[in-house]
């Protein structure tokens, strides 16, 4: 039951609800205006993000792509409230990222699955639910539901070491989905997996996105992955980390794997590659 004291109640209110009727443009969930972030290090200041402006709408699948050091992970961590920008304005669900984090507005998937070895798969998915104080019955119901969603039904009682790397990463996605946040932030979640498993997980992720209607922020350094998954591709470049191009994908939402051979797909991939090259030409 959702009551006004339930964090989910607040999560869903800003920007949507009765005002956003059918046909209206989807509301902006994440808004960045001239975001700057400078790290002070022993070697002097490092300009991790410079003048980053971006709007992410509800239901978008946004990929951040660029070479290492371009600030794509840093920007995702800023959205998550794990880093604090030193300049500009960043809001998530109309709140500061810090407030949004405290309101548990998003699920975060890291590059490594990071499952607790002493918990079963079910126990790992249950972790956020225990922390957020869901009832025992609801925990069990949600664990079963999200494990089913990532195709891991029946693995609830296995320990992480009994699963392959791809299955572990799916379990970590289930863990991020368990508490029904609207936003899913993924930091190179499939970066450590081989290409065959990666293809498979990409396909599953699209299905998951279609079914759950989440807003997804996805960091990658694979061009095909970015083009295949995204409705919006953000191309970034390093020193200082900044956005060089934002590409609205013209691909349909329904995407079989062989869409990657169509001229439309190849054209978008080409534009991403051009954007990455332009970023490098500045060096």
């Amino acid at each position: 039951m959702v009551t006004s004291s339930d964090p989910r109640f607040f999560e869903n209110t800003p920007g949507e609800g009765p005002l956003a009727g059918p046909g209206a443009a989807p509301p902006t969930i994440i808004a960045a205006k001239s975001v700057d972030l400078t790290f002070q290090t022993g070697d002097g200041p490092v300009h991790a993000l410079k003048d980053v402006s971006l709007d992410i709408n509800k239901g978008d699948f946004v990929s951040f792509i660029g070479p290492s050091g371009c600030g794509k992970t840093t920007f995702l961590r800023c959205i998550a409230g794990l880093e604090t920008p030193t300049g500009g304005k960043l809001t998530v669900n109309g709140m500061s990222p810090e407030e949004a984090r405290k309101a548990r507005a998003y699920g975060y998937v890291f590059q490594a699955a990071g499952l607790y070895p002493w918990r079963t798969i079910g126990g790992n998915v249950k972790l956020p639910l225990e922390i957020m104080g869901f009832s025992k019955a609801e925990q069990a119901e949600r664990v079963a539901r999200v494990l089913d969603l990532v195709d891991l039904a029946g693995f609830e009682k296995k320990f992480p070491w009994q699963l392959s790397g791809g299955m572990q990463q799916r379990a970590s996605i289930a863990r991020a989905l368990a508490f029904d946040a609207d936003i899913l932030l993924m930091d190179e979640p499939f970066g450590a997996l081989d290409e065959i498993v990666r293809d498979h997980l990409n396909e599953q992720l699209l299905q998951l996105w279609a079914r759950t209607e989440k807003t997804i922020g996805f960091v990658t350094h694979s061009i095909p992955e970015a083009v295949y998954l995204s409705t919006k591709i953000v191309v970034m470049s390093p020193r200082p980390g900044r956005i060089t191009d934002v590409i609205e994908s013209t691909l349909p939402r329904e995407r079989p794997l062989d869409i990657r051979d169509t001229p439309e797909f190849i054209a978008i991939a080409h534009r991403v590659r051009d954007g990455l090259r332009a970023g490098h030409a500045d060096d």
Partner: protein
Amino acid sequence: MVLGAGVGRSAGSISGKMMGDAVRSVLPILTVVAVLLGVWMLSVVPMNIHLAADQAQRDGVVVVPDTPIARQDVGAVALALRNPAVVPMTYVLDRPRLPGPQQVAAELWKTTFGVKVTSKKSLVYHGWVTLSATLLGFAIGTTLGIALAVGIVFSRTMDLSVMPWAIASQTIPILALAPMIIVMLGSLGIQGLLPKAIISAYLSFFPVVVGMVKGLRSPDGMQLDLLRTYHASASQGFWKLRLPASMPYLFASLKIGISAALVGAIVGELPTGARAGFGARMLVGDQYGQPLVTWAALFAAAITAAVLVGIFSLAERASLKRMGMVR
């Protein structure tokens, strides 16, 4: 979908594998034990030959040279070679300089199983005296160690202030400190179990502090970030992440701690005039020229330590297995 991949290992091969493991791990230990026993057996002859020659002469055996003073000038090996008949006697002396392994084993057997448990000669009685102080001290030391480690991990002030003192505490020789603790507590009217337990605790808290600080800090940045994304409280982070992650470190520390606690209890028995306990038996054997008593107590203490460490190893295996951290 690659659902089956990497799942389920056959249980059938496990027992066979464990047998192989047992043989592989026991064989090197037995080899070392055999070498040590051999060296010991060989050393008994030169160590005891002068005493044995004196004894043989008193029993009417002809020995060369024929006076104790003349024999002093002859090397132990030479004396043994010139009096081969005396050599077997080196293994059966009542008060040898170095008792043979079989003598120590016999004394150990006799004083463990051959006398009533309530007797002052029983190693079981003395063992319990030492063990009770060891266990009490270990409990105090472990509790203190875990508490300090939690404080050190969660408070920067404690990290800076407590850790250097914990390290400094272990640089003071316990032999110098033990009599002071016994005497000071004695003057306050505290005697018996507690002063020894405090010395045990003093030695055993340190490995627990060091191990637990490392264990509680073992979760990496990603795992801590994950908890931040859930807006988890510090106590949730402790109970759900830091504490379970520290378990392997805790068991390693407990195994070091329990043997340190036993040493502490024995050292604590030495300065009191030693009425009971392994430490008392060692001292009594030394002072009254009964090396067999000293050696039996020494071995009884070593066996006790091995058993205690073994118990913790089993507990470690069982609990890590239950936690799914052993494959």
